[in-house]
């Protein structure tokens, strides 16, 4: 889901960069209010986890590859604003150091994976877990559902961003200037890959860690009864 340089027009990149600035500002303000000093090491671990889990490329035999993002897990444990910051740090370093995701596309990639993914995932999680006990199985299921919906909606956004390009930017003779595949190809490709395969990786990783942490330290799930 890391859109490289060249797939999105400079204008598209500018729009997403401009959209992310108030989101990052809001994230800093929210984290300032909610993150306590003792949680700071968990923010670092969350960012590290998101980065390393994205290195596990999962193959569709003979087809493409994809991976989990880990952003919904961080959102469940530290809140969606903290997850936004953790995943943003991972994405920026990935682009700068490893060329994974474009420098110009960093706003769009952060919008998909550091904003849409943790927020959608977090709200699905809170909706399903509701006030269930912090150690309950319902919380594990809610975490898995949040992970699935979060990553699939993020992939859908990436598909739409890709797919709008040939519609908006082409030469007089119809050749694409940036991403050559329209919505009819890009949206199903991005959505189906994640609905069928990569989304389930996010589900498994998220549910397993939530289950483990329920036993270790229920303070992460203090929204519910203990």
């Amino acid at each position, binding site marked *: *889901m*890391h*859109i*490289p*340089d*060249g*797939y999105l*027009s*400079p204008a598209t990149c500018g729009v997403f960069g401009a959209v992310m600035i108030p989101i990052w500002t809001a994230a*800093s303000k929210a984290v*300032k*209010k909610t*993150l*306590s*000093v003792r*949680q*700071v*090491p*968990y*923010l670092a*671990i969350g*960012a*590290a986890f998101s*980065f*390393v*889990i994205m*290195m*596990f*490329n*999962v*193959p569709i*035999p*003979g087809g*493409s*590859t*994809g*991976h989990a993002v880990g952003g919904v897990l961080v959102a469940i444990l530290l809140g969606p604003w903290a997850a936004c*910051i*953790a995943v943003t*740090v*991972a994405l920026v*370093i*990935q682009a*700068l*150091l*490893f*060329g*994974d995701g*474009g420098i*110009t596309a960093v706003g769009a990639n952060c919008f998909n994976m550091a904003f849409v993914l943790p927020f959608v995932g977090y709200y699905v999680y809170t909706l399903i877990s509701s006030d269930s006990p912090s150690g309950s199985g319902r919380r594990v299921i809610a975490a898995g559902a949040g992970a699935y919906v979060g990553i699939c909606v993020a992939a859908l956004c990436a598909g739409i961003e*890709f797919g709008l390009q040939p519609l908006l*930017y082409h*030469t007089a003779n119809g050749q694409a*200037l940036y*991403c*050559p*595949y329209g919505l009819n190809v890009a949206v199903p490709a*991005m959505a189906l*890959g994640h609905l069928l395969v990569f989304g389930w990786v996010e589900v498994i990783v998220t549910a397993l860690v939530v289950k483990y942490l329920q036993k270790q*330290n229920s303070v992460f799930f203090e929204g519910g009864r203990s």
Partner: protein
Amino acid sequence: MTLTKKLWIGIGVLIVLSPLGLILPDHFKAGSAWGEWGLEEIQKMIGYVPLGFQKLSELWKAPLPDYAFQGWEGKDLFSMSFAYIISAIVGIAIIAGVAFLIGKVLAKEDE
């Protein structure tokens, strides 16, 4: 053992296992992620390289391109796995450091 220590051990295990993200796609003959093709792949797929794509795609020269060392393209899977693990360690050191600093600056003191 503190929980943070246990979680860091978990991250360490993931670092060691990370080459699976290289080996499994190779074994199952899976290609790039959708929409992450390079210049030559695009040329092969659609018969031309979009003009804007050509201009932007090689804008940035990453120091560790695709989690490998520069000039290591096409090396054997064992070498690539080594580079992958080094990339994971370097990436995590920087990312955890930056996230920690941001957290330190933003976090409120415990009452």
